[in-house]
Each structure stands twice: as C-alpha cells, then as structure tokens.
C-alpha cells in the first residue's frame, strides 16, 4: 500500500517540481513564469480545441511508450521506438501504394497491421542481437533507429516517392477509404482508442495471462526464470515484438489519420517522448494512459508558448528533459524514512542526546 502510494506521489511530485524549475528557467529569459504555467494549462486542457490537440498527440505517445514499457517488463531498456514508428508509417503507406485494398475497416486494419509488423520486426532485431549476440539493447536499438530513419528517407525520396510531391517528398497518399477518421466528427481520431486499448490490453496481458506473467518473471529475476525452465529468449523476443508492434502501429496511425502519406513530418520525436512517458509511468502499461495525455498536452501547449510568448519551440523539450531527470532522481527518495526525516527537521538546532531512562528511586 505504502509502495503504491509512493508510485503515484513520487512521479506527481517530480512533474510538479519540473514545472516549477521550468518556470524558473523561462523566467531567466525574461518571461513571466505565471504566464507560462497558465498557457501550458490552457494550451493543453483549456478548451475543447486544446483537448482535441492534446488527445491527438497522446495517441501515438501511448503506443511509443508501450514500445519502452513492454520490453522493460522483460528486463530490456529499448529506446529505439522512433525507428519502429517511422518504419511502421512507411510500411502502412507502402502497402497501400503497392496493392489495391478493400476500402473501409478491413483495408484500414490491413495497413495498420503492415505498420505493426514492420515495427515488431525492427525491435525484435534489437532483442535478438541482445539474446544471441550479447549486444547492449539500449545502444543497438537507438543505432537501429538511425538506420531506420535513413532507410525511410531513402525510400520516401527515392523508390516510393509520389512524383507529384514536389516540395516535400512523400509517398502516394492513402485512398480516402483507408484513412482513420475522427471520432464523431472531431479532430480526435480513432487512433486514441487504439492507443488506450493497447495500453489496457498490455496491462491485462501482464496481469492475467501465463505468458505475460512469464515475461515479468524473466525481467524481474532471470535466475528464477532459468530455474523454472522458462524459454527466456523466446519470451524476450515476444516482448520486443509486441513493443515494436505498438510503435509501428503508432506510425501507421499517424500516417492513416494525420499525414495521409509517409513524409519527413513523421519524424517528430514521438519515439523519444515515449521513453519519458514510459519511465514516468514506471513501465506500467495502464499508467501510461494518463501520463501520455499529460505530455501530449505539454506538446500541444508548446505551439501556444511559441506564438504568445515567443519562446522557442524546443521549450517543451527542455520541460521534458527536466522532468526526466527529476523523475529518476525522485527514485532516490523512495527509501527515505519520512517519519524519521520529519522528526529530524522538527527538532530545530543540534539534536539533543536522547534521554536515558533512569530507574526511578522510590520515595
């Protein structure tokens, strides 16, 4: 109980402290921190328009965060979600360009599956390199992300380019019937539902199914997993594939719902922001949902900060960076014995020697 309270309180306190520090930071640039906080809130959650923008950004964040959280449960630190996402978007656009697909739900599901498959294979590669070659998966997944981005640029500007796209190289646009539409006519598209469903499904998988539990055992105690004979490599590859599939799906959703084709705007840093979201959610799939909405909101508010206060568009990146540092530092507070700490603070001045109980003399 005490532990789960700390799980909520520590990240909340860290985010609050990050916002405070961010205010001080922009204050150094001569901007009133109060304005910044107000605009952050307004731009993120102030009105229905901001909410739509926020939720639109939260959808891919949830999926890229799962790309970190699911392998993390198997004991891997995968940070190459950006690569899987970009390839997912490319896979989605390439399938739609390569063959005629039935319009409507089936077609959309097929292009999304193509994206998920591309992402799954890419992250599985990082997992396989670790399991079979002993290569640090953090480094290899990020290197693979750069390779993926290079491949993406090569294909989008070369073989897969739509000749009609002159200024901004892109693949041919998805047919109208394949696109993901807004929910009830709003700008919030069904990708949000996919993201939430994926987070819930991952949470249930870890908690309710034998295979999900086995993955957690492999991640939590590899020695125990070995002793009970769990197929560690297979489970780790499975976790990587599922995580990668989520990131690939994020790319496919971005293409099918927002950009309508694969182009360089897909490389927008969702993969990196997803790492932060997953760490704040403590790699817990269900906790990713609110954290992704919060950071989607900060992302949405970024353009407002830029327009109203003239802050650089990277100010949101600074906020994310500060939050990341503080969230890690906050872990150090977990073991602090708060009662003793408060008692020490309350006792001003040098601590007095504790009274030694003396046997009372009877009168």
């Amino acid at each position, binding site marked *: 109980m005490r532990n789960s309270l700390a799980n909520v309180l520590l990240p909340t306190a860290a985010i609050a402290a990050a916002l405070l520090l961010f205010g001080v930071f922009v204050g150094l640039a001569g901007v009133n921190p109060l304005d910044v906080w107000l605009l952050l809130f307004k731009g993120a959650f102030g009105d229905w328009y901001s909410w739509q923008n926020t939720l639109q950004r939260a959808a891919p964040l949830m999926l890229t965060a799962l790309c970190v959280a699911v392998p993390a449960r198997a004991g891997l630190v995968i940070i190459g979600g950006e690569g899987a996402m970009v390839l997912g978007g490319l896979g989605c656009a390439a399938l739609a360009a390569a063959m005629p697909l039935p319009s409507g739900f089936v077609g959309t599901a097929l292009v999304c599956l193509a994206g998920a498959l591309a992402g799954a294979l890419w992250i599985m590669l990082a997992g396989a*390199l670790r399991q079979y*070659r002993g290569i640090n998966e*953090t480094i290899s997944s990020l290197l693979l992300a750069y390779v993926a981005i290079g491949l993406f640029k090569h294909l989008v500007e070369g073989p897969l380019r739509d000749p009609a796209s002159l200024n901004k190289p892109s693949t041919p646009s998805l047919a109208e019937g394949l696109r993901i539409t807004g929910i009830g006519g709003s700008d919030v598209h069904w990708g949000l539902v996919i993201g939430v469903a994926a987070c819930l499904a991952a949470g249930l998988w870890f908690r309710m199914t034998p295979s999900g539990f086995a993955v957690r055992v492999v991640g939590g105690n590899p020695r125990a997993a070995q002793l009970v004979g769990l197929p560690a490599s297979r489970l780790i590859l499975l976790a990587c594939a599922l995580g990668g599939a989520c990131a690939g799906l994020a790319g496919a959703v971005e293409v099918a719902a927002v950009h309508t084709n694969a182009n360089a705007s897909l490389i927008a840093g969702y993969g990196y922001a997803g790492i932060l979201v997953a760490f704040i959610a403590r790699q817990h799939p269900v906790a990713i949902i609110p954290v992704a909405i919060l950071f989607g909101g900060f992302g949405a508010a970024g353009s407002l900060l830029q327009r109203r206060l003239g802050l650089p568009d990277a100010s949101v990146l600074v*906020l*994310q960076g500060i939050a990341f*540092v503080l969230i*890690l530092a906050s*872990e150090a507070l977990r073991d602090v014995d708060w009662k003793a700490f408060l008692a020490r603070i309350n006792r001003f001045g040098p601590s007095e020697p504790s009274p030694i109980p003396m046997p009372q003399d009877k009168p």
Partner: protein
Amino acid sequence: MTADQLLIFFVGIVGGALRVGAPFLFVSLGECITEKSGRINLGLEGVLVLSAMSAFGASWLSGSPWIGVLAAAATGALLATLHGVLCSLPRVNDIATGIALMLLGMGLAFYLGKPLIQPQAPQLPAIALGNWSDSGAVRSALQVNALVPIGIALAVALWWAFANTRAGLLVRMAGDSANATRALGYSVSAIRIAATAAGGMVAGLGGACLTLFYPGSWNEGVSSGQGLIAVALVIFARWSPIRCVYASLLFGGAGAIGPALQSIGISWGYHLFNIVPYALTLLILVMTCRPGTTVSGSPGELSSNH
C-alpha cells in the same frame, strides 16, 4: 569514374576520416574515461549537442573560436557532472540517467541555440595537409581541424596516465572493484563523479569540432547519434584510448563516404551511405560481443551501481 575523380574520392575519404572522425575521437575518449571508472554515460550524445551549441555561441559572441572551445569543455563537464551526481544517488541507474541527459541536453541546446541558426561564428584554424597537390579539390579535402592533433596527443596521454599515474590507477580501481577502492579509503562516488565530469569535458571538445570546424554551423541536426556511436566505439576499442583513435578514424571514413560520393557527382543513395556508420557500429558490435561473457578489457564493475 576517371582517375582524377578517383583521387578526389579517395582523398575525400581520408580527409573526411580526419574531419568526421574528430567528434568521434573526443566523445569516445570521454566515454573511455567515464567507463574506466565504472559508469556508462549514454548522455554524451546530449553533451555533444549542448557543447556544440555553446562552442558556437561563445565563438560568435567573443569572436575567438578558442573561447568557444573552452565554453564547450566547460558545458560538457557541467552536464556530465549532473550525470555523475545523479548516478551516485541510491536506486538511480546510469543507463536511464544517460537517456534523460540525452533528451535534456538536446532540449537545452535547441532552446538556447535558437538565435544561433542564422549567424556565422569564427571557425577554428585548419591545418593544410594537402599542399603537395595542385588540385584545389584535394587541397580543400585535406584541411584538418586544429583540434585533431590535440585529440591524438590526449589519447596518448590518457593511455600513459591510466597505466602510470595515481589518478589513472584510482579511476581504474573504482571501475574494477568498488570494494577495493573503499578499503583503501577513497570515495567511489567522488572518483566516479570526477571521471564522469572529466569525460564530459573531453566529449565537449567533440562538440566544438562539430560547430567550429565541420560542418561548421549550428543547426538542430548537427549531431545525429555521433555521441552514441562513440559509446559503442569504446566497446570496439576495448577501453584503450589508443585504439579509440583508430576506431574514430575508421568511423570518420565510413561517415565520409556519402559526402565524398556527392563531391564527385554521385548523389544516388545519399541517405543510404549516411547510415553506413550506424550499420558498421552494429556490425562491429556483432563481431566483438559474445552472449554471456564480457568483452576483454571491460572494467569489472561497469554499470553495476554500487
């Protein structure tokens, strides 16, 4: 391809190895110092970007590129100190902290560097190695960054210091056995923080190479994973500063293939040739790493967080 073009291409690769390899050299030396003390600093990617920005900014404001170099070293040391201090806290993992500092460094650099995208800052002087040739293309390809000889001297000095000086031995001891360090009455955290800070300072020089020599301007794409490649490169160099020099030149050469091909008029596959360094890093990792064993030369308690 004529003989002339072949020469230009070849010289482009050699010159590019020295030019593109310079940031790799400094970051890998910095990471080498850090890892010798037992910590991995993935945040050197962030250090590289932030120090590249501050080098450019300081050079532009002061008019002297050498002030820029100092600023880069100071910035690198500061950000790396943050990494060192954070990792000394209980329950804080150095890999996660590295990722955080990578994002923080990039965020700060893009934020503070916004006004620096337009201006031109004074650049570091070049050492002309191509004066033997009368071809202008060869001459311009063999202009070498003045920091490169400093980097090579530093590598030799580090190699000597790790084996022969008190500080070098202490850093290695902290990396190999925290308990032995404690038993001798030294603070493991203090040694590791100092080594991480020194590593950040050296890596910061790599940032100065980026904005004050090649490519010679500040923009948000100035580093795309060079810092991270350098981290992987240290594994390949088996934690030897001298081997870091060879590895950096190899990677510089691989990174120069795309631009060298472009300089002789071949632009097909530009992005594909740009991924050669990443692919090469992965390939080298595949060849050097073995599952279940540590690479020989690896510090005994690397990334173990005592």
